[in-house]
């Protein structure tokens, strides 16, 4: 394992993917999710849609029970820049892209307005993030690389 990588980065890296033959599709309870729950796919799709993930740390929560909770993402209010993706974000490309855009907008809000303001204006912040994801998705979808 390279010294400058965490285990997780190494595990997700293309170097490892090429060196072992591993079934990539989601299995078991996750088999209905079209996008493999791996950071490599998150990065690949972000690149296709021209979504900049620099400064963003992504964590994938792979808890089976979370499938029934229908949440797709969350943004860390204290470790600003960290985004958590839940199994339902991987249902299809649209859900993943919209979740990335939505959570990225919250990161921007936290950086721009500060945590206190965001906490006190949750409704407005969410309205902003939902409008942002819709507008951006429609725009980026047309230009996405296939």
């Amino acid at each position, binding site marked *: 394992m390279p010294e400058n990588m965490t285990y997780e980065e190494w595990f997700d890296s293309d170097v490892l993917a090429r060196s072992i033959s591993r079934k990539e599709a989601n299995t078991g309870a996750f088999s209905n999710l079209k996008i493999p729950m791996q950071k490599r796919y998150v990065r690949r799709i972000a690149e296709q849609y021209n979504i900049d993930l620099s400064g963003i740390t992504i964590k994938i929560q792979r808890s089976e029970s979370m*499938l029934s909770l229908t949440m797709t993402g969350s943004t860390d209010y204290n470790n600003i820049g960290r985004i958590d993706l839940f199994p339902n974000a991987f249902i299809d490309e649209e859900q993943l892209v919209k979740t990335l855009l939505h959570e990225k907008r919250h990161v921007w809000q936290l950086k721009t307005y500060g945590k206190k303001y965001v906490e006190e204006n949750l409704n407005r912040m969410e309205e902003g993030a939902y409008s942002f994801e819709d507008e951006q998705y429609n725009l980026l979808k047309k230009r996405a690389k296939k």
Partner: protein
Amino acid sequence: MKWLKNLENIAKNHKSGLCPICGSKETDFGYSIIDPKSRMGYGAVWCNSCRHAFHISRVEVKDEKHIKEIPHNLIY
């Protein structure tokens, strides 16, 4: 993620469990809808004792019973 167990509890048995910050049983959770057409919205799990909370940022709200006003003075 401090509140993961609570989220799993909610998923399994609609109970938010013990507060991961102070250990209190006085926790609750709820959702608010932003887009009535898609039923997409947000939610929170919070502790009524210490006011710490977790923000659920993007969720399709299916749990009708828990659509409620999310308290304003929470610490995320």
